[in-house]
């Protein structure tokens, strides 16, 4: 039986939807979960951890990028973790990372609305002054993209709504569809926010390269 602690084997039905009995005996964090709502409570905790633990880093990373410091990020991420556990029954069993990130993002916005309302909605979705498509000055400075400090500072300076799509895309590699689900906006909005985020970053990194 010692082997059980490292190997958990179970037998899902071939191409049938979630029906099989879950075998989680002293489960390691990566034990497969079929139907979280069917397991008893102590196993529920184990099942929850199994599903969520692989995505804690992504969850914390998003909170940290949205809130800008460890302290607030930990508070929001913990809030999200507890909420996720409370609503674990409602999870549809697919895309655990997207599900967790959605909750984290919502907690971060709740936190911002309460403590720093000025950081939300500081841009106009439709009338943006830097609408892309302007012909560039052929003499423009080259992009300073080799300096990690400048790149991080430029991304941190983006409005939070731009920052989140940019970070979800470039750090987490989410598709536009997944970003749209996490941020609760249409795909078209993801695309335009991302485009504007990049335009702002280009400008920031270009001016950062100029000698003051």
């Amino acid at each position, binding site marked *: 039986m010692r082997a059980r602690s490292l190997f958990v084997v179970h037998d899902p039905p071939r191409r049938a939807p979630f029906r099989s009995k879950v075998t989680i005996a002293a489960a390691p964090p990566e034990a497969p979960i079929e139907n979280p709502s069917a397991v008893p409570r102590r196993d529920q*905790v184990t099942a929850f951890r199994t599903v969520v633990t692989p995505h804690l880093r992504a969850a914390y990373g998003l909170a940290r990028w949205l809130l800008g410091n460890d302290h607030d990020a930990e508070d929001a991420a913990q809030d999200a973790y507890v909420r996720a556990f409370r609503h674990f029954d409602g999870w549809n069993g*697919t895309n655990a990372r997207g599900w967790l990130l959605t909750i984290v993002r919502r907690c971060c916005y709740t936190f911002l609305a309460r403590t720093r309302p000025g950081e939300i909605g500081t841009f106009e979705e439709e009338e943006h002054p830097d609408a892309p498509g302007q012909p560039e000055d052929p003499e423009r400075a080259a992009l300073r*993209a080799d300096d990690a400090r400048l790149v991080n500072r430029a991304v941190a300076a983006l409005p939070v709504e731009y920052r989140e799509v940019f970070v979800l895309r*470039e750090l987490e590699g989410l598709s*536009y569809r997944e970003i749209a689900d996490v941020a609760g906006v249409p795909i078209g909005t993801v695309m335009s926010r991302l485009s504007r985020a*990049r335009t702002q970053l280009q400008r920031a*990194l270009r001016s950062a390269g100029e000698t003051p």
Partner: protein
Amino acid sequence: MNCAQSRPLLGAHLDNELDVRTSLELEAHLRDCAACRAELAELRALGEAARAHLTRFAPAPAFEARLATAVGDPARRRRAWLASAGAALAIAAVLLVFLRTGGPDRRLTDEIIDAHTRSLLVDHVTDVQSSDQHAVKPWFNGKVPFGVPVADFAAAGFPLAGGRLDYVGGREVAALVYRRRNHVINAFLWPEAGEARPQEIAARGYAVLHFAHAGLAWWLVSDASPADLRELEGLLAGLTD
């Protein structure tokens, strides 16, 4: 398409998020427009800089321990595991030695995971790197003594990255390499009589799924989710139905 229409699409083009028609129109414009090509190159550099330089914040170990207590269950084992990754590794190593003497499937599972991690460690995931099933399939001819069914499942979210020869369980085996978002999935296969229903094994932080069908034993391994492996299993089993 003109520059004003092309500019807002360049990022989505880099992200492979444009539909085929818009992509073709944009590419036609890019052929003619040096300014938009320069803009595209700059956006590509920006993306590379972001992926290379943006801080990937990790939660502090103490914070993870705080989370463990936040949902009630004391979970001593889990916290102990977190508190000392080194000790956990040592225990894992001891258990591994113990398990080496276990059943053949466990030893095989270990070898499968070893082969998977080895392929990632030495950055030698593919011998033949192609998303074209018609290039990968003939590559195996003469290298392994059995026909390798190969298909690209990009449409289902599992693009084929290539193929590789590997050595598992004392025999030369074929490995098909698929990608699932940022994850690599190794699908090992070799001839084996008999059918085996899909069996999921979670070990050493990896998801492993084994099944045998139509004279082939398949072992899928990845750090992607078990659900992803189940999905791929359905697609692969369909190849030889």
